[in-house]
């Protein structure tokens, strides 16, 4: 499939259209909304399912050296990307040091829904990927926060990392659930999967549609409220940075010699920006940074870009780079 067909297929999938419906409804000020408890319930379902399936896949294929190296690569990527993002923001936007560092943290970390959408594009295309990429995703959630805090402390020596914060970040619900269900999947393997397959495999894409409807609603509301902070430089950053992140991911993926699907997922992880773990950490550690900037940028600009254009682009490049 060439990239245009891929992009068209992707744009017209129920998943993307559900997201678009959410954005449109929010921009039109419809009162359509998904209760917070239901949204959280769906996110728990998705994390559990994606972690479990990743673990089962690792149980099938065994643990090899690449797993450890991939984890390491993910951690390095997560540490490095905020530095690039920070430098880029200094050039492209007029953000204050604090705001820029807070935004930068988001781009080193990852968005698990973008990752899920990526695996779903791979599935549709019938391309396999390493099951442990889920673990790489989990490993990339937190390091970026450290980088950002280091960037900030350079300029403000009075500020030091709160004792509790680090524990809070490492043990935040989404990491624990992802890693926990990954381990459960690894331990129970195909036998465990067979028991709960009709819960975590068959309805998965449908739940993802409703979840993306919700994310569209939240992103649309964010654009309505936070759109005024989106100056052109910032907007451009929200599109340029994921492309840079994906190139970094491409480099690591090719270097490690993972499969075509693995390379694509490395690109997706590099490209995606956090909107759950990092915002929460930033509110605690850098309350002076304006949340509407990083939330709007991550959820309102980069997420839709990755979802619509990024994914087919990354897949095409991964196929080209691996000859797959």
């Amino acid at each position: 499939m060439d990239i245009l067909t891929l992009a068209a297929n992707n744009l017209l999938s129920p998943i993307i259209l559900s997201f678009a419906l959410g954005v449109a409804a929010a921009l039109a000020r419809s009162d359509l909304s998904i209760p917070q408890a239901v949204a959280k319930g769906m996110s728990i379902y998705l994390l559990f399912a994606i972690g479990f399936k990743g673990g089962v896949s690792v149980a099938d294929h065994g643990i090899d050296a690449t797993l450890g190296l991939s984890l390491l690569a993910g951690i390095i990527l997560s540490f490095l990307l905020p530095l690039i993002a920070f430098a880029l923001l200094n050039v492209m936007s007029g953000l204050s040091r604090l705001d820029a560092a807070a935004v930068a943290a988001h781009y080193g970390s990852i968005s698990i829904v973008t990752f899920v959408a990526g695996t779903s594009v791979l599935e549709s295309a019938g391309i396999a990927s390493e099951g442990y990429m889920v673990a790489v995703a989990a490993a990339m959630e937190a390091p970026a926060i450290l980088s950002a805090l280091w960037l900030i402390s350079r300029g403000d020596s009075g500020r030091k990392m709160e004792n509790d914060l680090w524990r809070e970040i490492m043990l935040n619900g989404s990491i624990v659930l992802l890693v926990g269900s990954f381990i459960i999947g690894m331990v129970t393997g195909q036998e465990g999967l067979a028991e709960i397959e009709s819960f975590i495999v068959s309805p998965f894409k449908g739940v993802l549609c409703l979840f993306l409807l919700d994310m569209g609603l939240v992103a649309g509301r964010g654009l309505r409220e936070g759109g005024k902070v989106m100056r052109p430089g910032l907007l451009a950053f929200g599109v340029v940075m994921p492309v840079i992140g994906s190139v970094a991911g491409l480099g690591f993926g090719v270097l490690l010699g993972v499969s075509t699907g693995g390379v694509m997922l490395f690109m997706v992880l590099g490209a995606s920006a956090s909107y759950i773990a990092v915002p929460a950490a930033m509110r605690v550690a850098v309350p002076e940074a304006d949340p509407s900037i990083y939330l709007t940028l991550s959820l309102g600009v980069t997420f839709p870009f990755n979802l619509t254009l990024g994914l087919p682009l990354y897949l095409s490049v991964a196929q080209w780079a691996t000859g797959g």
Partner: protein
Amino acid sequence: MQTHNAKRVEITIEAIMQKRLTDALTAAGVTGYTILPVFGGSGRSGPWSREGQIGRASGMVQVVCIRRPEDVDELLDAAFAVVERHIGVVCVTDCQVLRAERF
């Protein structure tokens, strides 16, 4: 019915800061508090609603703490240390309580 003077302190604060606040209150000798969910609101940082949110970064709670008048200043100092750099509102009201031995 016999009632006793007390102060009702209502602190509206980001959900992410809840534990830090209640830890600080407990350290300041507070023996009880009640946490109310907040559905949405508006302030200098703009309007927000908890609908559809899954992140813990957005969302606030209200911590209500009833205490003897003479101990309220200590409570406010503790609360202020937490909310100082954060968004949120602290509001104190005179009240009467039953069963004063509880406070």
